[in-house]
C-alpha cells in the first residue's frame, strides 16, 4: 500500500476544503459537530481502543472542559472573538488534571468493574455541576460570550479548530500506535498480567493514555461550549456522549487508527440528517437505529477490521486460484458453528 500517504493527503485536502466547497452553514454546522465527535472518538480510542479498557465516563471530561471555558470566560471577561480558542488547551489541561485522580482510582479495577466505576464518576461529575451552584449556577447553566460573526462565517473558526484538534489527536494516536509505549498498551489489552511480568509499567501506561484522552476530550468540550454558547449540566455532562463516541469507535473499528473517525463520519451526520428529515414523521429513531443494525450486520467486526479481513481473504483466495495450482472448487461458506478467527484481523502490523 504505497499509495497510503497520497490517500491521506487527499483526505486532508478534502477536509480542509470542505467548508469552502460547501459553505452552506447547515452543512458546516453538521461538519463542526462531526469533527468534534470524530476527534473525541479518536481520543477515546487512544485510551479505550489501545488498552481495551472501556471507559464510559469521558463525558465528565467533556463537561469539565466546557465548564472550564465558561467559567474562565466569565471571570476574566474574555471577549467574544478568537481568544476563547486560545484558551482551549488550558481547558484541556484542566480536564487532564481532573482525570488524573479519577484515573488513578478507576484504573485499579478492570473489565466490567472499570466500566461501572467510570459511569459512576461521570454521574458524580454531572451531579456536581448541578450542586456546586457557586461556580456552575446549577441548573440555570452558564452563558459564553457570543461572537458577532455573520452566519456565513460563523462556523468556519469552529470547524478549523475542531479539525486541528482532530488532526492533533490523530497524530498522537498514530504516534502512540507506533511507539514502544503504544505496544505496551496493546499488550495490556491482550493480557495485562503477562505484560506486567514482561516489564511493561502497566499502571503509569494506562494512566497516561487515560489522561491524554481526557485532555483532548476536555478541549473538545470547551470548543463545543463556545460553539453552542450556553451550557447546562445535562447537556455538558451527557451520558449519551459516551455512548455516542463508543458507538462510533466500535462501528469504525476499535483499536484501529482511522476507525473512530470513520464511525463518526458515518454516525454523526446520519443522526443529524435523520432527525432533520425524518424527525417530524416520527421515523427518525427507527431509521437511525436500523442504520446501526444494518451496518453492524454487514460489517460485524467494525468497518476497518471487516474490510481488512475481507481484503486479506480476497487476496488469499486469489493466490489460491493462481495458475499453477489446480483450481479448487469454490470454498464452502464458513460453517456457522465454527469460529473462524480473523486472519490478520488487527493491527497495522505487517505493513510497517
Amino acid at each position, binding site marked *: 500500500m504505497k499509495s497510503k500517504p497520497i490517500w491521506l493527503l487527499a483526505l486532508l485536502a478534502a477536509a480542509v476544503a470542505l467548508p469552502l466547497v460547501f459553505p452552506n452553514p447547515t452543512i458546516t454546522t453538521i461538519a463542526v459537530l462531526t469533527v468534534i465527535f470524530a476527534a473525541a472518538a479518536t481520543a477515546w480510542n487512544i485510551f479505550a481502543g489501545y488498552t481495551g479498557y*472501556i471507559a464510559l465516563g469521558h463525558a465528565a471530561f467533556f463537561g469539565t472542559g466546557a465548564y472550564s471555558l465558561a467559567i474562565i470566560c466569565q471571570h476574566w471577561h474574555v471577549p467574544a472573538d478568537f481568544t476563547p480558542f486560545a484558551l482551549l488547551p488550558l481547558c484541556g489541561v484542566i480536564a487532564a488534571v481532573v482525570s488524573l485522580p479519577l484515573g488513578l*482510582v478507576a484504573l*485499579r*479495577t*478492570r473489565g*466490567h*468493574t472499570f*466500566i*461501572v*466505576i467510570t*459511569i*459512576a*464518576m461521570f*454521574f*458524580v461529575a454531572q*451531579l*456536581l455541576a*448541578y*450542586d456546586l451552584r457557586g461556580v456552575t449556577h446549577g441548573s440555570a447553566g452558564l452563558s459564553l460570550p457570543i461572537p458577532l460573526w455573520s452566519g456565513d462565517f460563523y462556523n468556519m473558526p469552529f470547524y478549523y479548530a475542531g479539525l486541528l484538534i482532530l488532526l492533533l489527536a490523530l497524530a498522537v494516536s498514530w504516534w502512540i500506535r507506533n511507539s514502544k509505549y503504544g505496544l505496551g498498551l496493546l499488550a495490556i489489552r491482550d493480557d495485562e*498480567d503477562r505484560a506486567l511480568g514482561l516489564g511493561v509499567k502497566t499502571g503509569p501506561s494506562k494512566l497516561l493514555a487515560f489522561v491524554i484522552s481526557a485532555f483532548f476530550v476536555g478541549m473538545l468540550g470547551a470548543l463545543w461550549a463556545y460553539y453552542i454558547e450556553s451550557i447546562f449540566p445535562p447537556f455538558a455532562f451527557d*451520558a*449519551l456522549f459516551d*455512548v455516542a463516541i*463508543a*458507538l462510533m469507535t*466500535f*462501528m469504525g473499528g*476499535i483499536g484501529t487508527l482511522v476507525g473512530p473517525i470513520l464511525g463518526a463520519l458515518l454516525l454523526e451526520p446520519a443522526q443529524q440528517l435523520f432527525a432533520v428529515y425524518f424527525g417530524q414523521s*416520527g*421515523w*427518525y*429513531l*427507527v*431509521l*437511525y*437505529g*436500523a*442504520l*446501526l*443494525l444494518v451496518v*453492524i*450486520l454487514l460489517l*460485524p*467486526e*467494525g468497518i476497518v*477490521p471487516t474490510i481488512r479481513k475481507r481484503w486479506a481473504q480476497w487476496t488469499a483466495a486469489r493466490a489460491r486460484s493462481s495458475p499453477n495450482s489446480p483450481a479448487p472448487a469454490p470454498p464452502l461458506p464458513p460453517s*456457522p*458453528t465454527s*469460529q*473462524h*478467527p*480473523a486472519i490478520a*484481523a488487527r493491527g497495522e502490523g505487517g505493513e510497517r
Partner: protein
Amino acid sequence: MDLILQAAIIGILTGGVYALMASGLTLTFGVMEIINIGQGALVILGAYLIYVLEQKLHLDLFVGLLITMPLMFGFGLLIEWAFVRPLKRDRIMLSILVTFGVALVIEGLLGLIFTTDLVRLQAWYTTASFQVAGFYLSYIYVFGFLLSVVLLAALYFLIYRTKFGASLRALMENRTAAQLIGIPVERVSAITFGIGVALTAAGGMAFGATNSFNPGSSYDLISRLLVIIVLGGMGSLGGALIASVLMLVIEDVTAVIWSPIWSTTVFFIVLVIVLLVRPQGLFGQVAGRKQ
C-alpha cells in the same frame, strides 16, 4: 429516626422493583456478559405491552405477564438470532452497538404507536397500601419485591441447578470446549437471551406501575441497572437483589437526612469505594489463578 427507618423500608421495597428490572440484565449482562444498553428500552417495551393488555383486555397486570413474558421471550430470540449471533469477535463490546440500535428502533416504534404522552399502569394495588406498625406499605412495591425474589430464585435454580444452566455456564467459559461436548451453543445462547428479555417484561410491569412513562423514559434506567449487576457481582443473582436494595436504601436515607441532591452522589461514592475494595462486586467470584 422514624423517618430514617421509613426511608430504609421504602428503599428496600423500591430496591425490589429495581432488582426486578435488573433481573433480565443479570442474564444478558451478568451471565452472558453482553452489555445490553437496550435494557431500558426493553423495560419500557414490557411496560407498554402490559399497558395495552390492561387498556384493551382489562387484564390484571400480573396476569398480563403470562402473555407478555412469552412474547418478550420470542422477541429476545429474534434479537439474538438477528443481531447478537453474527457478532464473532469482540461480541461483548460490539453488543453495545447492537443493543443500542435495537433500543432506538424500539423507542422510535413505541413513539409512533403510542405517541409520547405519559402513561401509567393502573390497578387497585398500584395506589393501595396496608398498615404495618403505624407505617403504610404499598401493595405494588411489596408485590414487586416478592415477584423479584421469586424470579431471581427461579433464575438461580435455572442457572445453577439444571443441565441447561450448566451448559450455559460452560458455553460462557469456553465456547469451543462446549461445542466439543455437544452443547448446542447457538440454541443455548438464544434461549438465554430470550429468557433475559422475557424477565424484562416483569421489570417493565413493575416500572410502569410505579412510574409514569413514555417511550423516552428509558435513559435514566440503564446505567443504574448496569451498576446494580456489577455491584452485586457479575452473575450473582442474590447479589443483584442485595445491590439494588443497598443502592436504594443508601439513596433514600441520604435523601431524607441530607438532601435528594446528594443522594445519588453518596451512592456512587459508596459504590466506587466498595468496588475498589472488592472489584469483583459484593458476591462476585475472583478470576482464576495464573499459571
